[in-house]
């Protein structure tokens, strides 16, 4: 109540005074008490107190009146709330310490108006309990559970990567929530790298004596989402590097998620890259069909609806790559049915979401070769031809693999489709790609992208 009133007042004042004035004088103020018409406003410094008392008192009183409060008096009191929560760290008690041999020189100073609480950013709805484990994410799930039970001791740092909407954020938030559930005083910081960049910029800009570096370095668990956005921002990377080192040396847990593995993030500093690879990097895979079905059923159950197996299957087939879209489709269906008081069945689902993307039967060998060639930007002639350069051999082998996996052609037929006489080449190629794609994430991505092109 107090907070929302003061926020409303600040919102209005922000429009009347200049931006510089607002940042200098009104930021970090708060309403402490509101009793019998006497309002006490907490301010960070004596300068702000003076300024508000002598120059802005009238404006504040007027704005309060507009918001339906008739103050008899507004008092200003110096109050350091951010500090008291941020600096009550046990380490203040150990005043002098024996320095390690490689004592770092004066730490790079950075500061900003970072004043948020440690659990900011964590959404309590993300827990381990409602995370559906499937073949694509069981390793990540196990690692995260291990971390939650003993942060900082194993898999530090943990680097999760994978495409959009496959549950990275869910998992890393679940770790944060699980740690907080066990120890509510733990300093769990969850932040997206973009937010980190923004706060770092503010810190540089305002040169305020606050606690950007201190805040992050005092975390027990630092969770950074979408690390790829830090790419190309050199100074931020440097600051993050120092934060990373400080935390890692103190055995604090670091969890990072990204859409690519560290080596594929362009313009990521080498030293950060190598550090990200230090603990454990896990590739999160697109959930398989069964997992998708399980996810749909769980989500439907939380809405109190039991879905027909046919509908579940249809949905799982309809959206194959992205859990967020899967949820979207399910929500669309449930909302549609709820509004009309219908029970979701396969007819409604089909009409609502459009015809199922059952694989068209008309795919032929020629299309596979064409799409593969296109994906690798080589010509069909080259693939069919005799050249044995590496950048042609790989697409050729993938094409053979796909002819086998998608059309189930015989090896002699595959050889013929590609203008080869010897079917053993085809056997070798299919086996080689099958083996490599099991080990190589890039290869898997390439194959699934070619499939996307085929069935699009």
């Amino acid at each position, binding site marked *: 109540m107090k907070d929302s009133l003061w926020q409303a007042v600040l919102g209005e004042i922000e429009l009347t005074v200049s931006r*510089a*004035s607002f*940042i*200098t004088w009104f930021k970090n103020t708060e309403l402490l008490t509101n009793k019998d018409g006497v309002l006490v406003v907490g301010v960070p*410094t*004596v*300068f702000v107190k*003076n*300024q508000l*008392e*002598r*120059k802005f008192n009238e404006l504040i009183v007027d704005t309060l009146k507009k918001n339906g409060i008739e103050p008899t008096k507004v008092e200003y009191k*110096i109050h*350091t709330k951010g*500090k008291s929560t941020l*600096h009550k760290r046990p380490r*203040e*008690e150990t*005043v*002098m*310490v*024996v*320095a*390690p*041999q*490689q*004592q*770092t*020189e*004066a*730490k790079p*100073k950075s*500061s900003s108006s970072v004043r948020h609480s440690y659990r900011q950013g964590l959404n309590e709805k993300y827990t381990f309990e409602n995370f559906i484990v499937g073949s694509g994410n069981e390793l990540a799930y196990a690692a995260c559970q291990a971390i939650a039970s003993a942060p900082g001791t194993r898999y530090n740092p943990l680097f999760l990567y994978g495409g959009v909407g496959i549950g990275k954020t869910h998992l890393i938030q679940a770790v944060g929530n699980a740690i907080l559930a066990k120890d509510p005083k733990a300093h769990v910081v969850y932040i997206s790298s973009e937010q980190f960049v923004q706060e770092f910029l503010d810190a540089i800009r*305002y*040169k305020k*004596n*606050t*606690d950007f*570096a*201190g*805040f992050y*370095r*005092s975390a027990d668990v630092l969770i950074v989402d979408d690390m790829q956005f830090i790419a190309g921002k050199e100074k931020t990377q440097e600051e993050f590097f120092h934060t990373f080192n400080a935390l890692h040396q103190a055995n604090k847990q670091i969890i990072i998620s990204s859409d690519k593995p560290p080596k594929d993030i362009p313009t990521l500093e080498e030293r950060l890259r190598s550090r990200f690879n230090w603990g454990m990097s896990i590739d999160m895979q697109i959930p398989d069909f069964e997992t998708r079905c399980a996810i749909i059923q769980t989500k439907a159950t939380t809405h109190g609806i039991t879905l027909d197996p046919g509908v579940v299957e249809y949905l799982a087939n309809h959206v194959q790559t992205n859990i967020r879209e899967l949820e979207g489709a399910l929500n669309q269906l449930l909302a549609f049915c709820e509004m009309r008081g219908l029970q979701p069945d396969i007819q409604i689902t089909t009409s609502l979401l459009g015809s199922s993307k059952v694989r068209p039967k008309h795919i032929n060998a020629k299309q596979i070769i064409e799409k593969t060639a296109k994906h690798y930007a080589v010509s069909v002639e080259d693939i069919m031809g005799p050249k044995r350069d590496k950048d042609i051999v790989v697409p050729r082998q993938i094409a053979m693999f796909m002819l086998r996996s998608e059309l189930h052609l015989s090896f002699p037929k595959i050889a013929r489709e590609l203008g080869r006489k010897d079917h053993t080449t085809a056997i070798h190629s299919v086996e080689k790609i099958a083996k490599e794609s099991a080990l190589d994430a890039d290869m898997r991505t390439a194959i699934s992208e070619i499939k996307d092109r085929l069935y699009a």
Partner: protein
Amino acid sequence: MKLQVTQENLNKALSSVARIANTRGTLPILANVVLRTVGTRLTIAATNLDIAITHYIGSKVSEEGSITVPARLMQDFVNSLPSGVIELKLDDYKLHITTDQYNSVINGVSAEEFPVMPAISEGKTWNIPAKVFKKGLQQVLVAASNDEARPVLTGLYIHTSGDKLYIASTDSYRLAEKEIMPLKEDISLLVPASSMQELLRVVGDQETDIEIIHDDQQVLFKVGEVELMTRLIDGTYPDYKKLIPTEFAVTATLKRADFVNITKVSSLFAKESAGSVTIHVNPDTKSVSIRSVASQLGENTAQAEAEVTAEGSITLNSRYLLDALGTLNSDTVMLCFNGKLEPCVLKEAKATDYIHVIMPLKS
């Protein structure tokens, strides 16, 4: 506003005040200085919202008034004027500055726009000789931290204990404490070290008393014509006294100049190891030797004569050691320590009012 001042006075005031006016902050007006007549005097003031400096100068005021002008421009301009009388005249926010040879106009901003300068209405007042305080500050400032993550350690702790006034500072790797003078007051102030750097500049070579007035939030230092107001740091200073050892297994007494020299030489070989040098105290050869090793470059051992009580060695950061030696004023100094991982103390051979503690490095 219309008045006459001498170039010398105005220049001196501007040079002490304009420094803290800064152009990088959020509020553009903080890059200005305020000129304001108070009775027969002119005040020149600036602030960066942590610290505020007001300088009073005598002048012949014929019309009262006030204005703010860009600090840098005003300072550079007045500095290049020849000495003699300057006339300042305000005409609709334009400050006309006239001498025999020069005639210029600086566009100002109303003093109403400037933040209200803080004042102390009720507070405790006491005095201290400027020279004594300055010496004390110079000795402890070096050990204050500049890590904003621990605000308490960025301050100097000015306090009384047992009817004596002390200043202390620590950055958690080293600690300095100076006993200033006997004082029967109950004082406990945590003043930002950066503000005290500024105070040192303001004090200069003055030999007057400094008047100190403070309440819970701020402290005002009055030095002659200048008033420096700074905020106090909120927080409790650590109980540092219990960290200062009083008994030592090893004590070496040697010439300060020798000690500085051998430390400097050794530090050249200690860059790789973050300044780490090992001091060995030997009663047989009556010497203190410092050894440093740089795996790539080579190594060094430097030795100096000393009076030694027992044998021992300790590894320190050479930069901290040099800083500490720089704060000692006597010709002979004492190095005292116990175990390899226990705090090491440097002090002047005869005086007992200053003590500098350095934590060893793990070797």
